[in-house]
């Protein structure tokens, strides 16, 4: 046998085996990477709105705490009383025929005052 031809043939077949294996392995690696990327993306899409909602709720809660801490209770009570008084005044004004809207003659928020 011609040693040179044999060596060349052997080298060629080895090259082919190497390239074939390289191709097979690379194909698999890329497929795995695609699957992993798709999985990570879909997980991110599921989590993002949930995290946004939780963040909004948390922000509202913190804002409420801040308002409660900063605004004095007396001021809140005065404001509420003013609002109630305005409501009662508006709804107790006599009509042109002298009648009043008894149903609205309340101290506000639908609470009827005690009968004297």
């Amino acid at each position, binding site marked *: 046998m011609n040693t040179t031809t044999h060596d060349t043939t052997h080298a060629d077949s080895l090259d082919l*085996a*190497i390239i074939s294996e390289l191709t*097979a*392995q*690379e194909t*698999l690696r890329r*497929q795995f990477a695609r699957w*992993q990327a798709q*999985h990570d993306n879909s997980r991110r899409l599921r989590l993002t709105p949930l995290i946004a909602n939780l963040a909004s709720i948390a922000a509202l809660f913190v804002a409420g705490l801040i308002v409660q801490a900063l605004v004095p209770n007396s001021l809140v009570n005065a404001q509420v009383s003013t609002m109630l008084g305005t409501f009662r005044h508006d709804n107790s004004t006599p009509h042109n025929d002298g009648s009043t809207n008894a149903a609205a003659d309340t101290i506000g928020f639908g609470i009827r005052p005690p009968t004297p």
Partner: protein
Amino acid sequence: MKRWTDKEIVCAIVERDNAALEQIYHSFRTYFMLHAGTLFAGGAPADDIFHDALVHLWREIETRRIAQHDGRICRWTDGEPRPMTSSLTTFLIAIAKRKHWEQLRREHLVLTDNEHTLETLDRERYEQRPPELTDDEVRQQVVADAVLRLTERCRDILTLFYYEHHSLDEILAIRPANNSKMGLKTSKYKCMQRLRQSVHDRLSKMGLD
């Protein structure tokens, strides 16, 4: 997530059922990542190890070296089916552990440049190989191992050339790190030459060249 049996996994890979293959990948990955912390305390990147090990297992199944026979999962050797004594998941973990140890040893060898140690390790591997593997199977595994051991740079160049079929000019545009076309051509040649030499050396030591 569905629990896949070994038979279902082998069937899906052989029949290339794409929908099932993706689920099988995630099933393997979930199990692997749960245990990676305890298995790879040496700090090797778990993703690389996992993908290398899974490529190895997947290739064994695709080339029918692992297949179903008489209702059992067997490994074909010398034309005879020998039933596997562990699950595919355990087999995957074993492959990953071996690759992790090889990587740590390789890094140690690169630092010490100890030729005698390399010869000793190859002899040990040959002596430890299962006796039922045929010579052709060993050659194919040696080629597969050599390709898996490629440096990232060599793998990039050879993949761009042989897998994506880019010309040297196109590769030069993609990889500006290579200063010239001649330098790139030399690098490609050296990478292939190193692969051939690595395969030839290992097969020679095993008496299989």
